[in-house]
């Protein structure tokens, strides 16, 4: 088990465990988001997903997202853990936990985090479905240079 705030891992991940990474006496609210592998996509029956990453850059961009959040909301902590490798239907692929003194900023920041993950973090999923497999592609627009 790790206490790192930004992590790419091949091991199963837990909302409770990631939330504990941002706990402190100043915290009055933790909002967590969990992304789950869905069994259907675009009319296809999904068998499982294979996630690939550029691990060194992924952890850099997760830290960048936390910096963006800290510039906009008065949060006490942000942790983001993304799992990679083969994930079965119903397993958790990504967890965001945002800790704050009060709830409002934490809700907004958690939403921002998962939206940004889908825009800039170098992780890709290959969907293996009944009858084939396909790489899922994300946004049209590349991120601004950073």
């Amino acid at each position: 088990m790790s206490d790192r705030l930004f992590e790419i891992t091949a091991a199963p991940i837990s909302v409770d465990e990631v939330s504990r990474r941002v706990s402190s006496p100043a915290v009055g609210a933790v909002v967590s988001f969990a992304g789950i592998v869905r069994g259907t996509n675009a009319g296809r029956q999904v068998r499982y997903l294979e996630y690939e990453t550029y691990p060194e850059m992924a952890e850099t961009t997760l830290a960048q997202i936390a910096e963006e959040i800290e510039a906009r909301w008065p949060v006490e902590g942000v942790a983001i853990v993304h799992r990679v490798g083969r994930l079965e239907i119903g397993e958790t692929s990504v967890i965001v936990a945002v800790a704050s003194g009060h709830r409002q900023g934490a809700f907004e920041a958690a939403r921002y985090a998962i939206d940004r993950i889908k825009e800039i973090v170098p992780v890709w999923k290959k969907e293996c479905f009944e009858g084939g497999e396909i790489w899922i592609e994300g946004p049209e627009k590349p991120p601004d240079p950073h």
Partner: protein
Amino acid sequence: MRGTVRFFASLREAMGRSEVDWELPDGATVEALVTHLHQTLPGLSEWADRTWIAVNRRYASLEMTLQDGDEVALFPPVSGG
């Protein structure tokens, strides 16, 4: 100067390799490297408008000047979450 290019996901599969070394004159830009790669790697041009570029693990512009030893990465639009 020289460095490496890493490929990921569908682009890695299409190139049939996960990395390739590059060598260019001093002062070359990212754009010059991309042009060089298109000339030397058959099939890469099909990916031109669906390829994102990072240098040393940060998103980079085509105008950026490369340095000796830079790690460049080419990959398709991200799809995590």
